[in-house]
């Protein structure tokens, strides 16, 4: 084999983050090369640079020995580099053939193209009807369209970003067959994933990123899921710091929670069960897109389910809306700060009112008590050290970390019985993150029950009393976080719902 792509100390910084720091690796012709890392490890930035979407700050690339620096994706495609994104750029009301034409720089005429699509899709075992509408197709079929669009341009390097997160196990098998066949035909594949079993099954080589740096390279066939997980997580996983955890009575109980996802790219919840006790922090880990947003929506009341599926203090509340749940003490903070947890152009004071109305009594008889609302907003700003010139400032004017502190503070200061937070410290600087974790712990120490959904295992290990993993919409059995090993976590993320041989919590 000979070298196809050489990446030499690529670096890329965004304000506040070094997304890629001197990243170097090589891809051989015809190999399937895994790019492995946790969320935020810098994988997407790296491939965007290879595909010409992002310009590196420094470093160089060589494609078959020639300098390679694509200024835009169409140039990358001309050089034989194509990419299938996690979220497809397809047009629902157009046919397969029309979609493929739009993405090609020199498309042949209709009849010729249709014939080509049929031929290529047959060859690679991904049958496609060129005349079908995208809108009528499943997510897996849509991915085929993207793949065929790339294949028609005869790529030498084929980049796939988390391709299996949207596929059924059967579809994954088909895809793997296609990729192996491509590899046998000499096409190199850069495969981005954090699913360890896939990488073990498919890839020839792996480059592992952590915090924007290459931390290891390996041959997956010589590794185990555990050793890969250790490399990915860093092997330095903070094993749980023992806290005094004396759980009280069960306050929140989920029983066989099933919920169809509203989002066509979402993951439906299947039989999620758990029992949360007073004073407990349950950490829920897992790869993004495995049902985290859906779980939050089901708990916040934005999506309703059968009443008995969610019980709060013995009452079936699955059919209640967000405010009725707030009244009963179940509060939540979604992942997306702007546009979901907070309204961007509204002031902090108005955003304090947004969820604080009920429990803080900010609008008795419906009339907004402006003084009380401002006081509540100021209380949040003070208690959570939100840096802002005042509470009349629009939410979108705050930095991400400050707004996150505000959003978490808003819920914590309402003295919830149960608080559910999704990605509480995503994109937040270390000091703010520590403050948020401290506040959540204090809340639990004061007797509330907390669910923290996060993709940051370090964070979950630091904060949780019990731990579970969401995988494909199913929740593993929660168990004590203390004493959990990286191997056990890796297995749960791989879909082992019983959590190996660990004792029941």
């Amino acid at each position, binding site marked *: 084999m000979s070298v196809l792509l050489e990446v030499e100390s690529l670096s890329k910084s965004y304000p506040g983050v070094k997304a890629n720091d001197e990243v170097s690796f090589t891809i051989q012709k015809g190999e399937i090369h895994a790019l492995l890392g946790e969320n935020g490890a810098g994988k997407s930035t790296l491939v965007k640079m290879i595909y010409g979407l992002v310009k590196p700050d420094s470093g160089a690339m060589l494609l078959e020995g020639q300098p390679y620096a694509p200024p835009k994706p169409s140039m990358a495609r001309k050089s034989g580099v194509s990419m299938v994104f996690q979220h497809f750029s*397809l*047009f629902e009301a*157009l046919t397969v053939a029309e979609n493929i034409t739009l993405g090609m720089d020199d*498309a042949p005429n209709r009849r010729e193209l249709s014939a080509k699509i049929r031929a290529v899709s047959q060859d690679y075992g991904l049958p496609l009807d060129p005349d079908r*509408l995208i809108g009528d197709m499943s997510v897996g079929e849509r991915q085929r369209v993207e793949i065929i669009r790339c294949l028609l341009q005869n790529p030498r390097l084929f980049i796939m970003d988390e391709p299996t997160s949207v596929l059924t196990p059967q579809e994954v098998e088909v895809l793997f067959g296609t990729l192996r066949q491509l590899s046998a035909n000499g096409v190199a594949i850069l495969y981005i994933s954090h699913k360890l079993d896939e990488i073990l099954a498919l890839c020839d080589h792996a480059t592992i990123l952590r915090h924007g740096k290459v931390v290891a390279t390996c041959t997956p066939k010589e590794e185990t899921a555990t050793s890969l997980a250790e490399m990915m997580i860093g092997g330095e996983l903070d094993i749980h710091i023992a806290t005094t955890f004396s759980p009280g009575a069960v306050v929140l109980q989920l029983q066989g929670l099933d919920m169809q996802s509203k989002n066509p790219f979402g993951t439906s919840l299947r039989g999620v069960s758990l029992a949360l006790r007073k004073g407990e922090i349950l950490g829920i880990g897992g790869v993004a897109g495995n049902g985290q947003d859906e779980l939050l929506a089901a708990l916040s009341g934005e999506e309703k389910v059968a009443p008995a599926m969610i019980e709060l203090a013995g009452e079936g509340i699955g059919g209640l809306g967000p405010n009725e749940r707030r009244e009963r003490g179940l509060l939540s903070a979604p992942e997306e700060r702007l546009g979901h947890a907070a309204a961007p152009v509204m002031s902090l004071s108005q955003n304090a009112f947004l969820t604080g109305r009920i429990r803080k009594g900010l609008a008795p008889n419906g009339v907004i008590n402006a003084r009380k609302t401002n006081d509540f907003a100021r209380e949040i700003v003070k208690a959570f050290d939100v840096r802002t010139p005042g509470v009349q400032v629009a939410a979108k004017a705050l930095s991400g970390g400050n707004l996150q502190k505000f959003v978490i503070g808003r819920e914590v200061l309402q003295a919830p019985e149960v608080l559910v937070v999704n990605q509480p410290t995503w994109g937040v600087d270390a000091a703010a993150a520590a403050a948020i974790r401290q506040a959540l712990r204090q809340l639990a120490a004061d007797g509330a029950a907390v669910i923290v959904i996060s993709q940051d295992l370090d964070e979950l290990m630091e904060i949780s009393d019990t731990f579970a993993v969401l995988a494909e919409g199913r929740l593993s059995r929660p168990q004590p976080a203390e004493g959990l090993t990286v191997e056990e976590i890796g297995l749960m993320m791989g879909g082992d719902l019983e959590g190996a041989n660990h004792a029941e919590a």
Partner: protein
Amino acid sequence: MDFSSLNAVAMIVLLIGAATPILLAAIGELVAEKSGVLNLGVEGMMIIGAVTGFITATTTGSPMLGFAGGALGGALVSTLFAFLTQYLHSNQVATGLALTMFGLGLAALMGRNYNGIKPPRTDRLEVPGLSDFPVLGELLFSYDPIIYFSVFLVFAVWWFLNRTRGGLVLRACGENHDAAHSLGYNVQLIRFGAIMFGGACAGLGGAYVSLVRVPQWTEGMTAGVGWIALAIVVFASWKPWRVILGAYMFGGITILQLSLQALGISISGAYLSMTPYIVTIVVLVIMSADRKRASINAPACLGRSFHASH
């Protein structure tokens, strides 16, 4: 009741004439909407076309130049809407309404010295021998060139949208402007062009009203035809051929209503006149109710402002 005065052939001929302004405006709006732009200014562009067409025709003495002038006037005034919505990201609904009001007023001002003048006559396209042929000759060969052109235009639009790459790109902008942008297409420019095409068609339709249908200039003479054209596009579920169907149906109702009035059955006139609007609402409801189908029929980005992220 005596229906003998309702000559079927004559009525069809009348119907097609009545439907042509609607047809022209609607096919233009269809193209704009396919690119993702909801332009509620059709009525304004039409009346501008009516007055510019009228002025051009009476000044030059040539009805054909008049039609060209109408199309040009409509296209020019539509650039106001295009610039505001595409480059200043203004709200399409509000901007379209502004265009309608602006157009109605401007046309009234421009045409104030043209009241009561007769425009040059637009001749029918006579095909020797065929036009005098009974029934079929009258049905097929008794029209002015614009009527033939309007039908040709529907075909041309269908062909462009469904058979050319340019049409595909235009539809792609209307379906998913972010994806079109990420594939490297200039969404704003394409929409600008589609809006101008819509303006030209509406202007031509307006000129047809002032030069053929009435034929003279009076203030506000388009009398809501632009709004009907908007409804026709929905009625046609954004399909060119169905625009013909819808426009001729509206034309038919107009003619039927006039004929019934001539027969002294005026009571039902108002009810008859409202039926097309009610039918449109019913069709709209039926098409929207199946959300999946609706999302495939209507351009998904219709009415949404596009901001290029980089």
